[in-house]
């Protein structure tokens, strides 16, 4: 008579309804019970359908925040099976909180617990959504700033910023001033903290000159990059992070190679407003 058969716990386990010791016991049992594993997989699929049935449209800000964080979050490398070092694993509900959130999906999933924690997501839990977004934006800006000076292939961060601007609810076109000597299409999103800058109908330059894009905050200027128009007077598209307090995007003509600070008046000015 099996008064206490762990095999009967598959239902509770799939619904995440086992507490600490029961959960440990079941996981140990699962490792050697093939029928249980297969039943669990079907139950987890079933539970997922229950979850999906509760779908609700999330706030727009969630998307921008996730995209911004993704751009600065390293992915775990694939697991190398067979050679991974087994570490002692704490119980799911009283040990490592990251492990507690581990998908129990699939037999043998517990090996997923092995591996580096690149970012302790748990520590972020205490932040409010807005703080999280702000923190992510600051990190994104820091990364973008590094990219400006080191110019590595940092296109991932840029792609995320671009996607964020393209999809954010608060993205708007920021017009250039009337005296600007170019056609501009500047799309700016405050929630992403970023802008996509497209300039065309730009005049040709002598070989010893270059255009340089600046972000101006009051009387401070930060160089974004130097750029040259193609034969049709179209500039390369630039994605850049912005910070709170930035007031203007400006393009000046500088000696080839660029300048540390603007040396001429901007030929294109795009005020940054909320």
């Amino acid at each position, binding site marked *: 008579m099996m008064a206490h058969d762990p095999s009967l716990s598959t239902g509770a386990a799939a619904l995440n309804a086992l507490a600490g010791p029961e959960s440990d016991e079941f996981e140990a049992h699962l490792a050697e019970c093939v029928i249980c594993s297969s039943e669990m997989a079907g139950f987890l699929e079933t539970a997922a359908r229950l979850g999906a049935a509760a779908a609700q449209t999330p706030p727009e800000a969630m998307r921008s925040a996730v995209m911004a964080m993704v751009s600065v*979050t390293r992915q775990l490398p694939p697991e190398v099976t067979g050679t991974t070092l087994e570490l002692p694993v704490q119980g799911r509900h009283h040990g490592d909180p990251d492990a507690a959130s581990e998908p129990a999906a699939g037999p043998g999933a517990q090996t997923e617990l092995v591996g580096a924690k690149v970012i302790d997501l748990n520590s972020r839990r205490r932040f409010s959504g807005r703080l999280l977004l702000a923190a992510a934006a600051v990190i994104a800006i820091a990364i973008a700033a590094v990219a400006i000076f080191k110019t590595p292939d940092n296109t991932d961060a840029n792609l995320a910023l671009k996607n964020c601007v393209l999809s954010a609810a608060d993205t708007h076109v920021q017009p250039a001033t009337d005296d600007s000597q170019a056609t501009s299409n500047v799309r700016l999103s405050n929630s992403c903290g970023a802008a996509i800058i497209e300039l065309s109908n730009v005049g040709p330059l002598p070989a010893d000159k270059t255009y340089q894009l600046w972000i101006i905050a009051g009387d401070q200027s930060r160089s974004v990059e130097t750029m040259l128009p193609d034969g049709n007077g179209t500039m390369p598209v630039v994605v850049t992070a912005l910070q709170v307090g930035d007031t203007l995007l400006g393009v000046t003509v500088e000696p080839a190679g660029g300048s540390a600070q603007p040396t001429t008046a901007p030929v294109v000015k795009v005020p940054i407003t909320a």
Partner: protein
Amino acid sequence: MELVINEPDGSQASASGTNTVETAEQMMGLVSKGDQAAFARLYDAMSARVFGLARRILRDPAQAEEVGQEVMLEVWRRASRFDASRGSALSWIMTMAHARSVDRVRSAQSATDRDHKYASTTVERDVDVVADAVETSLERKQVQRCLGSLTDLQRESINLAYYSGFTQAEVAVALKTPLGTVKTRLRDGLIRLRDCLGVPA
């Protein structure tokens, strides 16, 4: 820093050339290789489910949003660990969403919050939510229909465990039913639900 945008919509950047509908598993495959455009598509396919489940369990929209962010970021971070031979992407993601939400519930609740009285009122609330859920989505209708095919005890046990994040011991107290019975009802309820939903056994 330069980035030339050829396509009007970044999400097209790495879509496969075919016209077939991209599955979540295919998206996961691309995401595991660092494809952020694929991740954006996966987000659009999954975020409402993740957020909705977190909202259902936690009730508080702000907390649900935080969990939604955490889970979607975990999907990105752990994409290489997803193995389609073990289960669907939906199952993998929703398991994470449920675990994260329940973690919050359990860590926030002191033992005194979980007394019998609290459990009883929650049962009533939860039943109301199920009854009030007016949704046209086929997915939801099918789940509602299948939940309706369960016995009351099966359905209440599953609702409390899954949507309220109760442990089976808490479910037993809330329903004034022996633990062994709850354990069995969770399992046979899920078997019936699985077969009703057409999930392969």
